[in-house]
């Protein structure tokens, strides 16, 4: 016997015997068969074994295995009861209700997260407003006091603010980095929209190179709706020292560029004094509206959960009851 062959060679010979090799494999096997007697004798052994198996007589069924009506009736009710009419409907409704429940729950969670963020933002924004309202708060005093004072005092204060960066300016720089909210932008816009002569380069006498008048304002990109005009303004001042221009560009000062398209009235100063409270009221209303929307989720979630549970339990009950 050809016991020297490896299992892989036996498998190849067996597949070759049945014509299950590819054309290339067949050529390789035939080439080896011509030169390797062991391989050839192994092939013959497999061929005889297969011949013996094929020579086995085909046993005929001793009787018919057809199903009688009675047998079919015993089988069919079980098959039909396994899928009752309402089973698929209940299963579908349960699955759909479960899906809606999950989606509603996710929406609730998302809304809850939004509300929390809103409350946090509100608290964060209320803090500087409250600090500004307090007269003993020195960092914000220089920013908010001019709006409450006379224009002359405001001009002096604003000039002082231009000479050295104020904490309010630092706050603006920080705000510009963290992408202020629209409300913050509105506050900044109203703060910068000071009465004429409060620090705009246009109102400076003899064209003094004001800090914010000549150089581009890099600190208030959102508060200034027309930033393209500022470099043009800088080019209109050729006498401006280059050193100062660099300084102006590097020094962020928030309150230098008036907005010509939104002329300010004196009454707006008082309006701004109450802006934090209005802002808080608006945000409270928004939060309340979202809270009302969230409160609507509860009955929807409960209803969907009840539907999913009832339909699912009914489907399971039907399946258990009708299973053979």
């Amino acid at each position: 016997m050809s016991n020297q062959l490896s299992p892989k060679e036996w498998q190849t010979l067996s597949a070759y015997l049945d014509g299950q090799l590819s054309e290339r494999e067949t050529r390789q096997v035939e080439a080896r068969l011509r030169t390797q007697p062991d391989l050839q004798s192994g092939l013959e052994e497999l061929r005889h074994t297969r011949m013996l198996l094929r020579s086995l007589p085909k046993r005929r069924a001793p009787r018919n295995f057809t199903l009688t009506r009675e047998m079919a009736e015993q089988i069919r009710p079980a098959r039909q009861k396994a899928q009752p009419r309402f089973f698929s409907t209940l299963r579908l409704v349960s699955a759909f209700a479960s899906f809606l429940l999950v989606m509603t729950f996710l929406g609730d969670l998302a809304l809850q997260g939004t509300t929390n963020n809103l409350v946090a933002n509100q608290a964060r924004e209320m803090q500087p407003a409250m600090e500004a309202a307090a007269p003993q708060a020195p960092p914000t005093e220089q920013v908010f006091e001019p709006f409450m004072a006379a224009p002359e005092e405001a001009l002096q204060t604003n000039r002082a603010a231009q000479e050295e960066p104020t904490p309010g300016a630092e706050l603006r720089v920080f705000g510009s980095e963290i992408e202020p909210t629209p409300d913050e932008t509105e506050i900044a816009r109203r703060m910068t929209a000071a009465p004429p002569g409060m620090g705009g380069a246009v109102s400076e006498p003899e064209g003094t190179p004001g800090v914010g008048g000549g150089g581009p304002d890099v600190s208030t990109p959102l508060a200034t709706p027309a930033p393209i005009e500022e470099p043009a303004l800088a080019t209109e001042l050729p006498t401006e020292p280059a050193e100062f221009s660099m300084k102006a560009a590097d020094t962020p000062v928030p309150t230098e560029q008036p907005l010509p398209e939104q002329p300010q009235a004196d009454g707006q100063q008082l309006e701004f004094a109450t802006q934090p409270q209005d802002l808080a009221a608006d945000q409270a209303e928004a939060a309340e509206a979202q809270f009302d929307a969230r409160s609507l989720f509860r009955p929807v979630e409960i209803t969907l959960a009840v539907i999913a549970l009832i339909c699912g339990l009914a489907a399971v009950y039907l399946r258990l009851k009708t299973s053979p």
Partner: protein
Amino acid sequence: MDEAALVRDALQGDLDAFNRLVLAYQDMAFNLAFRMLGEDDAAEDAAQTAFISAYRSLSSYRGGSFKAWILRMVTNTCYDELRRRQRRPTIPLEPVSEEDEEVESPRWLADDGPSPEESAERAELESAIQHCLGRLPDDFREVVVLIDVQGLDYSEVSITTGKPLGTIKSRLARARLRLRDCLQHFGELLPQSFRLEDEAK
């Protein structure tokens, strides 16, 4: 026989259509069960059970070779029977010696092999082959019976067994090799050509 039409009618509850399919495949099913189980009665029961299972789960038929699908029912039923036998072992067919060792003698098979329908020599050879088939592992026996006895091709066997073609090739080669080794013990019963080669070696 329009097999697809019969299957479609059977799926709609036409018992006559299903029974026509049964008549078409019952010999093949019984033969497969007999080669797997080695007993007429067990094969008969397995074939009947397989057709009942096929009728019950006809809705799970997804097209393709209905023969492969129905033979899969038969092999699954045979596996159930073989597992039942393993749980409840019966008296072995082979005689055992006083030391409880199996006596494997071709003469024993030759002497006691019943051959009521065919010649004694032919029946003895069949008994020898069946004896060797019975000594194969179940999954090897399944493949070699389906291919070499039933005449299915590799792809049909792959569908019937749910195994890839590579596994089918491997199992078939190993089954043939084991059968070759086993049949060498029945040299006197083998055809002349088989014996001459064996003696030449």
